[in-house]
């Protein structure tokens, strides 16, 4: 980003559409700001701001997380969900956005089932757009909260062995995490059946390790991130059956013995115990899955403040 000396200071984060939009300084700023919010009750820095939560895909979890984050900073939220009338009537995405934009909105937080939709919207509005998950593309706040959670436990990212296991092909969480954790210096291993992990994945970041063998991915791992498997993929013949997936790729307590004893277990949710993750693992002391949800609010507070306030008021 260029350093502007104009009278109106620009926000630190004009948009957050993908992890690769962020430089290292911005990443560190966001992580530090979230840590500050954890330490002390935050000031109501966003009083008078109105944030539009535009959710074209149902996600109570992420929408609530942004809502809580916004309100903790004093901002007002307007929630538009897939069941809202205008969306139901088949109005185009841009027409909906133009209409809502007229209601004095200061920022848009957006979730959509089609990759790139927040990018399209950001191209057509003059307020910050925060991507809350788009198709198979990106989910940047999820990756930031995952990095934040890892640092809480491991004090660092650099040098850690991080295994990401599950439906990588269809996962926006995976894409964002691969980019972010690799950039922060982790050794990232990707593990899935060949049908859900095409070789092109190796191009997403330097030094990625791709494997179809779970024990290889888990070997001496510091962090194990498990991704959801949708049974819809079975019908599309990405794998033969739920049972076979469980036999080969379910992260169970038994298999987890290959990882470091202090390895932490993560899952972006919603998870299905007994499929991609063993119940014994999901509820084990090593699991930080509930903490991820709490940290999500802190990271989203950091993102919203950085998107809405000029950089100099947004100090870490």
């Amino acid at each position, binding site marked *: 980003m260029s350093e502007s000396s104009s009278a109106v200071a620009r926000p630190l984060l004009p948009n957050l559409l993908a992890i690769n939009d962020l430089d290292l300084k911005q990443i560190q700023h966001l992580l530090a700001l979230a840590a500050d919010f954890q330490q002390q009750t935050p000031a109501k820095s966003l009083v008078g701001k109105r944030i539009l939560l535009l959710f074209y895909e149902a996600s109570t979890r992420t929408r609530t997380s942004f809502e809580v984050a916004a309100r903790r900073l004093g901002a007002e939220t307007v929630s538009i969900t897939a069941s809202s009338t205008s969306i139901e009537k088949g109005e185009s*995405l841009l027409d909906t956005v133009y209409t809502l934009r007229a209601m004095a909105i200061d920022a848009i937080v957006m979730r959509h089932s089609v990759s790139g939709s927040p990018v399209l919207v950001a191209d057509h509005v003059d307020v910050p757009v925060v991507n809350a998950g788009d198709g198979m593309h990106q989910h940047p706040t999820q990756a930031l909260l995952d990095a934040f959670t890892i640092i809480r436990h491991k004090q660092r990212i650099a040098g850690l062995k991080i295994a990401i296991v599950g439906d990588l092909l269809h996962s926006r969480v995976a894409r964002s995490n691969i980019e972010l954790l690799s950039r922060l210096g982790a050794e990232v291993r990707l593990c899935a059946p060949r049908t859900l992990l095409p070789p092109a994945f190796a191009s997403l970041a330097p030094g990625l390790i791709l494997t179809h063998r779970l024990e290889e991915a888990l070997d001496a791992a510091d962090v194990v991130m498990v991704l959801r498997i949708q049974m819809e993929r079975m019908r599309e013949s990405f794998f033969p059956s739920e049972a076979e997936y469980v036999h080969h790729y379910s992260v169970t307590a038994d298999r987890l013995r290959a990882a470091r004893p202090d390895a932490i277990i993560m899952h972006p949710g919603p998870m299905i115990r007994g499929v991609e993750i063993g119940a014994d693992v999901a509820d084990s002391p090593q699991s930080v899955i509930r903490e991820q949800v709490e940290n999500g609010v802190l990271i989203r507070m950091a993102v919203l403040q950085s998107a809405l306030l000029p950089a100099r008021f947004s100090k870490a």
Partner: protein
Amino acid sequence: MNLILKNGRILDPASGRDEIGDIVIQEDRIRDLGPGIAAPGPGTLDCTGMIVCPGLIDLHVHLREPGFEYKETIETGTRAAVAGGFTAVCAMPNTNPVNDNAGTTAYLLQRARELSSARVYAVGAITVGSRGEALASIGDMHRAGAVALSDDGRPVMNAQILRRAMEYASMFNMPVIQHSEDLNLSAGGAMHEGEVSLRLGLPGISGQSESTMIARDVLLAGQTGAHLHVAHISSGESIEAVRQAKKRGIRVTAEVTPHHLTLIDEDIKNYDANFKMNPPLRSRADRQILLEALADGTIDIIATDHAPHAAHEKQQEFTRAPMGIIGLETALPLTLRLVEQGHISLMRAIEALTSRPASIANLPGGKLQAGAPADVTVFDPNLSWTLDPAQGRSKSRNTPFAGWNFKGRAVYTVVGGRLVYQLHN
């Protein structure tokens, strides 16, 4: 009315002619051509510094009429054609109704006679409704004037139906134009499958969805003896299948679009659906293979796949926006750009836009010789200009080349001896 094109560089791939000279047009025919044969007089167009070539012919155009007049009409589409230097276009049958019968073919050609600036040839559907299930009335459409067959927009998936269509079409010597795409392999896809689609999180259309279909179809063409014309070839692997088939004497020809020769998947910026088309922009390596195949003749011709769509249709989520871009007014400048970059010679470029397409579809134009129809394009190869889609003649503006600086542009377009387009600066 007579017309004299004076002192231009006459390029005629059919005869190999490349010399400064004049073309004298009488009524709808070329009367004579050669160096210094005409004294200036009324009806003389000074072509000094310009290139005079056969009128460009586009075998692959979607005029959208009848049924989708909000995207394009015969009138606007052919106005765009002549502004781009095209004197003849082949209209694809995926209109509403589909041109799968003699009545619709006759209607289209009648409308074209009334409204068109360029010559319009009809491509009839291969199957009823282009649904791939039953043969369309191929013989009747041929009698009504259709010059080729295609279910373009859709492939003929059923090999038995395609085989029968080839056998039947070969009686009329009509090329069967296949939109080569295995719909099972491409299902749900929005862009080329590769590293870029993976990063953007967009479902992919693999190169194999095209190449496997072409591999099958050239074998069917070999068996039936029919003429298979591969529409908008895009994948490097497909080239090998065509090259081998040609070597074995199978009657196969292929076309490539200017955009596949120019852009690649990495050029897709900000999920702009003006970069979305089918087949999709392929990889850097694919494009390189296409350029070489065009130069060595494995790919026979350049065709635009001019596919107009309204702005509101394109300004949508990427996977929801329709496929296709307009191309009639950018084809010549994009091709000249390839010449400038040294990928193909000027003569080969003109051949791929004139005499070769004419011979593939058995059309009368495509050559400059005494007695031939007076379809002539004059372009200034050095004219610099910037593309502003709002200035285009097409009803639609869906092009990824907005703002591009080009060198070279049609200045005069003559169809049947009539000056139907003249560039005004």
